């Protein structure tokens, strides 16, 4: 009898250990936007020249103020509520948006480079497919923004109006900025002035639209 009771106790303990009760733990690999993080290699602030056709600059070759090229690759560390890394999370469900401004993104134009790896990490380093301009980057995981301050990255584009094509409307606005007061939206070279360097980058983007 005593032996039977011992066996029953052991069996119950084993079943409790092997089958966690819902609510005691979160073993499902659901991303936790409070624990997941996104970082950039240095404090910045960065500016990235972007175009709707993806012909802009990669985040890995952003500008610092003054026009120096710097790496603004965003590294996302994706974890669940236990702090465990989430492996193979789809890159399509990880994208960038801006906290302020009017960045207009083509469909799928700001997604992560790849699925998360075994450490739960992935990056955003490629050029965006986007127009308009925006400041302060947020990383979204299946539509939920990470609970952290926006990253110090801004975007501008020859598609100044943000209608996802760089055309005559944008020439008018750029011309006004070139002759008038400073506007970040036209400072593609990011040196605090709008001059021949910006004209070069603006002209290169004329006609660009989403793929």
């Amino acid at each position: 009898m005593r032996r039977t009771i011992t066996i029953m106790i052991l069996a119950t303990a084993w079943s409790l250990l092997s089958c966690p009760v819902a609510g005691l733990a979160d073993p499902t690999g659901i991303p936790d936007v409070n624990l997941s993080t996104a970082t950039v290699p240095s404090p910045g602030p960065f500016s990235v020249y972007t175009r709707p056709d993806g012909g802009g600059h990669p985040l890995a070759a952003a500008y610092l103020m003054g026009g120096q090229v710097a790496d603004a690759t965003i590294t996302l560390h994706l974890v669940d509520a236990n702090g465990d890394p989430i492996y193979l999370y789809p890159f399509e469900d990880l994208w960038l948006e801006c906290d302020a401004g009017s960045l207009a993104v083509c469909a799928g134009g700001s997604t992560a480079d790849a699925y998360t790896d075994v450490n739960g990490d992935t990056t955003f380093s490629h050029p965006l497919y986007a127009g308009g301009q925006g400041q302060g980057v947020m990383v979204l995981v299946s539509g939920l923004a990470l609970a952290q301050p926006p990253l110090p990255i801004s975007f501008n584009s020859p598609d100044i109006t943000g209608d996802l094509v760089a055309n005559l409307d944008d020439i008018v606005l750029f011309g006004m900025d070139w002759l008038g007061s400073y506007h970040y939206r036209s400072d593609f070279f990011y040196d605090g002035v709008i001059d021949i360097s910006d004209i070069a980058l603006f002209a290169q983007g004329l006609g660009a639209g989403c793929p």
Partner: protein
Amino acid sequence: MRRSVILLAAVLLLAAPAAAQVDTHPDGIGLYFDEQASINCIDMGTGIVTVHLVLTNATAASGVAAWECRVDYPANLISAGTSLAGSCINLASEPDFAVGYVQPRPWATINVLADLTFFVSNTSPADLFLRPISQPSVPGQMVYVAPDDIGAKVPMIWSTGGPDVPVATINGGCAVPAEQDTWGGVKGLYR
């Protein structure tokens, strides 16, 4: 006799000066009446003339992504049209040019940037000048940028000396290259 004529013809052919590029200095900018950048002065009656704005011996090997300069000319020249080379946009109003290329202009020793056509209304001397635009990227300079180094503004050097020296002349004296020959070079002419 026949042999002498052939010999004489050969000598004359060798002696005939080939059209030579006027400005051999790096990053030269000038106005020329031919696309070989060798003629910067002509005499003519009233009528139409085309002058080429040419960047010579650019130091940036990747080509030209954008450039800016101003073309000044007297009242007896009446603009009859401007043709910019390549697919580009001029954001300035003529006679200022602030031109950016959709596709950068490839490098060339003689890079024709624009063709300007004028009606010469009388035969008075007409001097043409190149100057910085009214809102220059670099004060006092005409510049271009190369596609592989957008931030570096490369000064373009007057083919004949400076903003107050004509770079091309119609019905007047010919402009001269910017830099004087060295004494050794002059002596070399007589060796």
